[in-house]
């Protein structure tokens, strides 16, 4: 399922998103290499989701640029899973096939891919069931399967475990690692610091629409460099309120 390495590194240069003049992204500078799991941390409203949506091509930046290995076009191998994935009023299998529609694959190829990803997320036995009847954890796994099926080189995950219990969270984390091993570069957000420690290779810390720090995970959690990240780790930013409710 792995495409070329050609869209990395992704270089964001002074990226700005200012709907109605509000600086939501206020000059994001960031370079993402071709490997690993990056976790975007930051308080509520920092611009994490907007950043992911911009990378997915869903928001048009008002300034700055994104270069995909020097090119302005990302290529098709980007997939995104939203915090609350919308599932179709259809079977689990039909939902898993949604992202394959534009790929113009043969019927057999679609069925093969769907069967494979459902197997890997542990939903093969639910393939014929209505997706809207799945539990929160199952929904999230289906959403991952749906994105996985397209064979993404870059997978964007917005709070993939926000409403899940610890067991379901663990299952989703295991899947994210597996998708990474399968060749996808992963950029995700979370408000779960433990999760960020467990899963990330590097941390992108965002606050006020800017990247305040981008460090390897181990260093970020032991010795955060930026004053904003230090405060955040001490729990003195508004983020803590969100973490607790």
């Amino acid at each position, binding site marked *: 399922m792995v495409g070329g390495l050609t869209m990395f590194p992704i270089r964001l240069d002074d990226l700005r998103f200012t709907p109605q003049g509000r600086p939501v992204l206020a000059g994001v500078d960031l370079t993402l290499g071709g490997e690993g799991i990056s976790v975007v941390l930051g308080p509520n409203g920092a611009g994490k989701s907007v950043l992911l949506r911009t990378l997915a091509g869903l928001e048009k930046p008002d300034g700055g640029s994104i270069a995909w290995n020097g090119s302005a076009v990302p290529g098709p191998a980007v997939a995104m899973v*939203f915090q609350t994935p919308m599932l179709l009023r259809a079977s689990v299998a039909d939902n898993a096939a949604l992202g394959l529609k534009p790929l113009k694959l043969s019927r057999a190829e679609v069925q093969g891919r769907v069967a494979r990803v459902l197997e890997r997320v542990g939903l093969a036995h639910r393939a014929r069931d209505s997706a809207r009847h799945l539990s929160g954890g199952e929904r999230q796994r289906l959403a991952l399967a749906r994105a996985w099926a397209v064979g993404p080189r870059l997978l964007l995950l917005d709070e993939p475990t926000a409403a899940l219990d610890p067991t379901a969270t663990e299952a989703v984390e295991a899947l994210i690692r597996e998708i990474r091993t399968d060749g996808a570069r992963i950029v995700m957000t979370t408000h779960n610091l433990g999760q960020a420690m467990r899963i990330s290779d590097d941390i992108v810390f965002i606050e006020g629409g800017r990247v305040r720090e981008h460090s390897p995970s181990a260093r970020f959690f032991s010795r955060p460099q930026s004053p904003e990240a230090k405060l955040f780790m001490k729990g003195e930013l508004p983020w803590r309120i969100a973490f607790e409710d």
Partner: protein
Amino acid sequence: MLPTLLDAFHLLGNLDAQVLAIVWLSLKVSLSAVALGALIGLPLGAWVAVARFPGRNGVAVFLNAMMGMPSVVLGVLVYLLLSRSGPLGSLGLLFSPAAMIFAQTLLVAPLIAALARQIVEDAWRDYAHEFAAFRLSRRQSVATLLFDCRFSLVVAVLAGLGRAISEVGAVMIVGGNIEGFTRVMTTAIALETAKGDLPLSIALGVVLVGLVLGLNALAHGLRQWAMVKYG
């Protein structure tokens, strides 16, 4: 009054051939019109819901306004189109079941399209980001949304059928209410009542109301079932 009612139920009970023929033609005309109207209205409504083009709001308002189009007015328009000197006069369709189907199709297609637009647009709000992230084309989005909304859309189609089968103005004008050829339930009721043949009017009225009630019960039941099955 009582003998009239008894006569009416006698007609119904014996499945009077005349009544049956009228009911059958009504169903044939209106079901055909609704099938055509759905074929046009569903994709059109979904397209307007999803597409972004200048004048889109105008189209939406137009479709909504067409829901209130008096059927007699539409009948007159179609009459002018199909009359011998009209632009489609050479087809020789006037005063035939085909003309009635044509008129009713024009009546229900905008109704189905307007309802479909509303239904699909609501769903589209939920899915827009997902579909965009997967780069579904507009055509794929429309097809996926139509399937996703299939149960609500059945209700829209049944609303179209309700309107078609109960309208009298359009079929009267373009069909001419010719006995044994273009006479349907509503035109028969209008005529027989005027002539004083109340039993036939009442018998047809009972059938018509029964059909409309049955359709609504069906729509309701279908939605309930779908809600349970698909959430």
